[in-house]
């Protein structure tokens, strides 16, 4: 993985001192919160319901064992012994003190980590396919481009006070594991007929209160011109977005108002300006970065055999293990969704266990996923049983990837000051309702995503079944949505009808699932059946 050089290290070190100074000025009264808020947000520091919350960037979802152990140390020393993996490959701490935040950033900087631009109206942490560098179906590792863009967009002088947040994702496989087109700018690496590397570019996606799926703005952009093109997009948006209504300032709104064709035209015009300025990083710099992502020294001649004699292990292998590009290796997914637990939460001790596993069995490589799970990307098939035993001991061996209990949920009203309703208790109740493993397997792939408010951090627009918590005259109420997808068959879920209370929404989910079981044809996932039969049969099941 990427290693900081003196320049990268100096940059994060200077950032720590800058934030220390800003925090000092705030506590001394030289700034009010209105002035301080944008600065703390650019360092990932929110004020939440119970305390400050710190969001740490995990660039393109990749981290090593040393970094994971540092995250565990911070959880113990400055928080309450746990952390929370988010839907954008970040990690959040929920119980942070402002006066200690600069020290935490300083600790992160010692392991080449930071919280730069993890919030606020800035270019956010760039997400990527969690199987990058391991996936059997990828064209190339997308992370060198993500790292190049991380540097290019860090402290960008023109784009540090944007109209709203700006999210980028990069993948290089046909299978989309990164919710690509739900980003403001989505990049998929492709090769043209001449074999040259380039990007398929999508623009104007995003969830929130006005969801849009990013549209294809460029079929093929030569890879080395990506920074020019990205800056062109950002400049058109920065100059022309509304500034009078924060709910209408995301780029998707501008794209919608200008129209796709006109937005593309303006971007192309600005693109020519940037090309002429020579701001693109040279090939030598790409090559330097890419050298850090050369594949680890995979052994050859390994056995493909997995001893499945332990049925619990066999079940875990069937659910959690994905094909690897190197013979004899596998990708192992670690579920952070135990039945009745808090999705995405992980204790400091569990972090240490996972760090040890990564170090011993996965070339010191670990990934966070946007569905709030973890991945050991390079495990010898022969080691899977040992890995599973260690995970089981640590309470991390649930076998529910992409099943009905693998629920995405935002922190909701239990933690978040924006939330209108709690998300986690609903997720837990759904998990308990469907806990039976045979029932989960019978239902098959079913992605439930829950948000506690319209900001949609729980990706409810992209759920096969989505749940949106709202405030109905001071009480929690939940709307049900069906038919969304964050995969390569991206679609936006539709609301079924009137909302429910907490018990009612779980019943409604169960009725939806049972109707699917009645209607499905052989081999059909829930989403396939929904797309074939439409909303009406489900509405009838839900509302009678």
């Amino acid at each position, binding site marked *: 993985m990427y290693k900081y050089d003196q320049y990268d290290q100096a940059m994060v070190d200077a950032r720590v001192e800058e934030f220390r100074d800003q925090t000092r000025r705030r506590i001394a009264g030289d700034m009010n919160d209105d002035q301080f808020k944008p600065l703390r947000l650019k360092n990932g520091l929110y004020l939440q319901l119970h*305390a400050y919350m710190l969001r740490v960037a995990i660039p393109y979802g990749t981290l090593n064992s040393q970094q994971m152990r540092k995250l565990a140390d911070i959880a113990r020393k400055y928080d309450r012994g746990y952390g929370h993996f988010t839907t954008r490959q970040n990690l959040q701490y929920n119980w942070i003190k*402002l006066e200690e935040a600069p020290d935490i950033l300083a600790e992160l900087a010692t392991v080449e980590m930071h919280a730069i631009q993890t919030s606020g109206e800035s270019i956010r942490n760039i997400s990527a396919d969690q199987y990058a560098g391991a996936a059997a179906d990828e064209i190339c590792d997308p992370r060198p481009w993500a790292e190049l863009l991380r540097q290019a967009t860090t402290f960008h002088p023109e784009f540090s006070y944007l109209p709203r947040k700006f999210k980028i994702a990069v993948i290089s496989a046909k299978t989309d594991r990164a919710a690509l087109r739900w980003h403001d700018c989505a990049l998929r690496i492709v090769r043209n007929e001449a074999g040259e590397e380039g990007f398929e570019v999508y623009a104007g996606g995003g969830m929130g209160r006005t969801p849009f799926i990013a549209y294809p703005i460029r079929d093929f952009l030569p890879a080395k011109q990506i920074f020019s093109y990205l800056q062109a997009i950002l400049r058109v948006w920065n100059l022309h977005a509304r500034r009078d209504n924060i709910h209408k300032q995301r780029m998707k709104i501008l794209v919608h108002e200008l129209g796709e064709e006109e937005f593309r035209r303006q971007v192309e015009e600005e693109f020519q300006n940037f090309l002429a300025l020579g701001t693109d990083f040279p090939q030598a710099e790409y090559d330097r970065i890419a050298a850090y992502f050369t594949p680890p020294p995979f052994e050859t001649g390994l056995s493909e055999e997995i001893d499945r004699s332990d049925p619990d292990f066999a079940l875990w292998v069937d659910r959690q293990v994905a094909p690897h590009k190197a013979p004899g290796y596998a990708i192992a997914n670690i579920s952070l969704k135990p039945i009745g637990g808090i999705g995405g939460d992980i204790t400091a001790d569990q972090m240490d266990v996972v760090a040890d596993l990564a170090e011993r069995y996965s070339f010191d490589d670990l990934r966070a996923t946007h569905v709030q799970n973890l991945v050991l990307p390079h495990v010898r098939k022969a080691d899977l049983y040992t890995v599973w035993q260690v995970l089981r001991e640590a309470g991390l061996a649930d076998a529910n990837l992409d099943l009905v209990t693998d629920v995405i949920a935002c922190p909701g009203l239990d933690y978040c000051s924006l939330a209108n309703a709690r998300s986690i*208790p609903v997720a837990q109740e759904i998990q308990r309702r469907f806990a039976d493993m045979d029932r989960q397997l019978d239902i098959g792939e079913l992605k439930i995503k829950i948000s506690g408010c319209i900001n949609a951090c729980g990706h409810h627009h992209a759920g096969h079944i989505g749940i949106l918590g709202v405030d109905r005259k001071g009480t929690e109420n939940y709307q049900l949505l069906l038919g969304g997808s964050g995969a390569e068959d991206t679609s936006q879920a539709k609301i079924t009808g009137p909302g429910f209370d907490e018990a009612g929404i779980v019943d409604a989910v169960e009725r939806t699932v049972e109707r699917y079981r009645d209607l499905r044809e052989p081999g059909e996932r829930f989403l396939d059946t929904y797309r074939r039969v439409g909303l009406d049969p489900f509405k009838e099941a839900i509302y009678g």
Partner: protein
Amino acid sequence: MRILTGNDLKTGAVIWWTGQDWSLHVEDASDVGDHGEAVLAREDGARRVNGGYIVDAEATPKGPRPAHIKDRIRALGPTVRPDLTLKPADPTAGDWVI
């Protein structure tokens, strides 16, 4: 009744206005009547509170109970982590929130 809440500037902890000072416990909150804005302006200026606001609450024998669930969750702690609330030893504490 109307009570005042916010977060401690340095620690972020949820705090409630007692009439003289800030407390971690909503039970200590006092009715500010129409003086809420004035108290908040003064306390914000003194940097003793961050993001302060006025909350409608019901006076009960056990002390003020905020009208909105969000403020009741703030007063107690996350309902999904009773061990991290202000009343970890009381298994029924969550009932007060809902």
